């Protein structure tokens, strides 16, 4: 049993959704029997075992209960049913800069903040230099925190949090700190922690982070564990489900049909030498309606309708950039183009049509140069 870091057993959590909370005694007495509350089941019968040394991501859409689960694991909230057992020193980084006092210096605030995480004075002093170095605040560390820019504030807060030496780290969406350089540094620090047999549970909206950092992903859907396993698989299913939900929630016509189309291969002005096989043209297309046709043209002549395929990478990037499901599950397309009678410069067009009114939604064009066909023609 000792290799289990976090054990969630048949755990359920309800929130009372109170519309008008009776805050005062008078309201409580008057509305004794008329409390306008309804129970909202945030998490239902969750069973999770997390081993020591695992790096686990919790994914799910907003309101799926992943942050609540993290708060339950860190004992900020308590379950209504079932139990959560944790083994080892646990630190939750749900809030950066907890206990910071603006009038005290950065150095003093490191004490306050680290003390909230349960560190002793000696432990804090041992880490002080590391924390200051990681925050890159330099001599500003002895200025009051109120004089800091928000970026400096977050950098200091993150440095304390990440240097707290816990066996189990619970992290909620805090990687978006500071500039790109600092974000990269935070990420490599997390990789370092992951590789040093720490147990990490992370809630992230960035599926790219999940894929690169975690060895396991747990997908929460409407308060239940929908899937638990390899991040690539889980993310795949998660994105599919999101598109499905998006489609079913879509009622009525889209106001303005928009889309984007892109060639992945061949590249612009690519030189094609081998034309014995048809050239495979690939790319992706995204559109806010599902019912579309994508046609390929060579020098303005229609060749074929492109086949559609799944492109998890595109969906993932879309999810991370725009936060939400892309409207098309099969957003990739491909089409073989026969070139055995062509030479010189030619253009390939990909045009996306709305099946409803046959209008062009969007298009893209590339140019290729065909060499090596001279002998035959």
């Amino acid at each position, binding site marked *: 049993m000792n290799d289990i870091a976090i054990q969630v057993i048949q755990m359920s959590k309800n929130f009372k959704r109170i519309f008008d909370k009776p805050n005062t005694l008078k309201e409580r007495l008057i509305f004794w029997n008329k409390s306008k509350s309804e129970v909202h089941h945030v998490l239902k019968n969750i069973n999770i075992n997390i081993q020591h040394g695992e790096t686990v991501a919790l994914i799910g859409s907003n309101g799926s209960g992943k942050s609540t689960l993290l708060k339950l694991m860190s004992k900020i909230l308590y379950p209504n049913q079932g139990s959560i057992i944790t083994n080892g020193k646990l630190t939750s980084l749900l809030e950066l800069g907890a206990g910071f006092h603006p009038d005290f210096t950065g150095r003093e605030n490191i004490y*306050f903040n680290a003390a909230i995480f*349960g*560190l002793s004075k000696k432990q804090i002093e041992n880490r002080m230099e590391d924390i200051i170095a990681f925050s890159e605040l330099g001599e500003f560390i002895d200025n009051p925190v109120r004089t800091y820019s928000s970026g400096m504030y977050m950098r200091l807060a993150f440095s304390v949090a990440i240097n707290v030496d816990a066996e189990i780290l619970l992290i909620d969406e805090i990687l978006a700190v500071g500039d790109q350089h600092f974000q990269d540094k935070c990420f490599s620090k997390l990789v370092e922690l992951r590789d040093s047999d720490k147990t990490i549970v992370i809630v992230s909206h960035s599926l790219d982070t999940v894929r690169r950092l975690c060895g396991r992903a747990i997908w929460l859907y409407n308060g239940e564990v929908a899937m638990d396993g390899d991040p690539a698989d889980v993310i795949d299913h998660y994105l599919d489900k999101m598109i499905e939900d998006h489609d079913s929630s879509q009622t009525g016509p889209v106001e303005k049909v928009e889309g984007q189309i892109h060639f992945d291969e061949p590249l612009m002005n690519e030189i094609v030498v081998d034309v014995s096989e048809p050239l495979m043209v690939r790319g992706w297309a995204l559109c806010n309606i599902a019912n579309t046709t994508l046609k390929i043209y060579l020098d303005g002549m229609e060749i074929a309708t492109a086949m559609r395929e799944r492109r998890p990478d595109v969906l993932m990037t879309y999810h991370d950039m725009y936060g939400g499901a892309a409207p098309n599950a099969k957003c990739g397309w491909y089409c073989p183009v026969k070139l055995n009678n062509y030479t010189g410069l030619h253009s390939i067009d990909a045009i996306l049509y709305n099946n409803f009114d046959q209008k062009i939604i969007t298009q893209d064009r590339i140019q290729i140069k065909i060499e090596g066909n001279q002998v035959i023609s």
Partner: protein
Amino acid sequence: MNRLREIISYKELLKTSIRKEIRGKYKGSALGILWSFINPLLSVLVYAIVFPYLMGNVIDNYLIYLVTGIIPWTFFVTVVQAGTTSIRANAGIIKKVYFPREILPLSVAISGVINFFISCLIVLFFVLINGIGISWHLILLPIIAIIQTMLSLALILPLSAINIYIKDTEYIVTFVLNMLFYGTPILYSLAQFTNASKIFLTLINLNPLTHIMNSYRDIFLYHRTPDMLLLGCVFLASAVLLIIGYLIFVRLEKGFAEEV
């Protein structure tokens, strides 16, 4: 026992909270921490001027009598008021970070007792310039102060927890404290009410603060050993209340992050 061990492992947090409680309260004012000593002195001044006119003074050394009453009272009232709001005032970190919640009321009580010991220098100053002097009885001061801290803690643990669920608690506490100020022999002495009703005297004698105040006066002003039997009873009552109060706190603390 497990909880005690956990509080000990968070002792640095306890220390920084106490430090913030003592230093942070009057931060930004010109006199700073001095206000925690000036405030009771100013009340002493007001009562020393007003009450002899109203009541026709019969207490010897009334100024010292007031000082030895008001300074412990200030200690009690500050701790109970700040303690009741201590959890609510830290709603931000309660929602976001785990730590043993009892640290918050505990740090209010400890910072109060530290402030009180410093304030006792004022009492000593008064007894010295008034020619009353000091005696060996002062070594009992920490015992009385610890009993008072226990009593305060026994009150603020449940009150701070209940205040999360019912916000009226803090206003009711303010009112009750106001009543208690007159229900405790601070401005007057029970010896003044020889012909008062039995119920009135019983009520005041049931007030544990009465005996705490009398004990402070015994060691500062009258240089005699306090009634140890009564003090022992107050100690026992405080200990029992502390256990009950802590159980209430433990029972209620699981909902803090949701209710606050």
